[in-house]
């Protein structure tokens, strides 16, 4: 079996297991209240980390590039209460235009 297939099957199996573990072990039980407070804060913590890494990280280095500018434009659109589609398009268009001219 080629290295590619080994990686594909192992990563696939691992990912399926990682995603299924919580829902299988926890069942349909509601989380206890203290946990619920922590779980409520998982979203802001994780979303902010995804914003940071997807806008400013390339592999293992921090970079300030067109994605950062797109994020800034998205921030302005969000402050102006633009709908999600507009926010996403504004970010992509900003990055694309900057790449076009630089």
């Amino acid at each position, binding site marked *: 079996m080629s290295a590619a297939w080994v990686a594909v099957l192992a990563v696939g199996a691992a990912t399926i297991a990682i995603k299924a573990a919580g829902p299988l072990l926890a069942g349909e039980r509601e989380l206890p209240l203290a946990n619920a407070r922590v779980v409520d804060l*998982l979203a802001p913590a994780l979303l902010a980390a995804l914003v940071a890494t997807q806008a400013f990280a390339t592999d293992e280095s921090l970079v300030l590039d067109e994605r950062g500018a*797109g994020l800034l434009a998205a921030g302005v659109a969000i402050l102006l209460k633009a709908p999600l589609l507009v926010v996403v398009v504004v970010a992509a268009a*900003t990055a694309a235009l900057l*790449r076009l001219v630089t």
Partner: protein
Amino acid sequence: MILHTASSVLRLVPESKTRQPRRGGYRLGLRAVTPLLPAVLAFGVSFGVLAQAAGMGAEASIVMSLTTFAGSAQFAVVSVLGAGGTAVAAIGAAVLLNARYGPMALAAAPAFRGGRLRRLLEAQLLVDESWALSRREGGFDRCVLIGAGAALYVGWTGGTAIGVVAGDSLADPATLGLDAAFPALFLALVAPLLRNRDALAAALLGAGIAICLTPVTPAGIPVIAATAACLVGLRRPAAAPAPSYDERPPGRGAPAEGTSR
């Protein structure tokens, strides 16, 4: 219509005045994720193209999108293998990148229904975008998660198949700025949460941890470590007055504290 729906979904997050329709929930998820589908499709195509270029083979590339269904991990595998790395190195990188799905799926666990097999399958539709879009105050909307997740799944695997077949003839998603779409989405989804002080603290701490760890740890670790920021929820017991943490203005201090751990 899409415009209207997307804005109402955004407003649904704090769940204030907007009525949340119960029927047609899957369609609500599909509509919520529609603004992202072009970008997801384009990245699926780009994964297919890169996987071919790295010599992964058509079947392995498509099977990977069908089973792993996680962009960053799949790109990591392609780049490690393409650079001549071993399968073990590729697997390690991908598993680290996907480790965040552990806590995310646990948080969303009460939303899944049915027997073990069904829960296992439903949980596979959990990815960053479907998780974020389906989050509500105090839980997750199962229909939105599944509707959005299924649309993302079709877009991602379909895009991969197109990329595998069409090869290099298609545009690089970065040229279209599509890589900037994802952080913008996550910013739009986190923004309404930040009116809450604890959430703001968790967000600043999470972003700070991720930024500080990026240059010094393998990819994947920064985001996983950032999930620890949700533990600020333990800092304030229900009836007790707010501890000093909340008295500090959130700013540079919060992220720095997390990274010294």
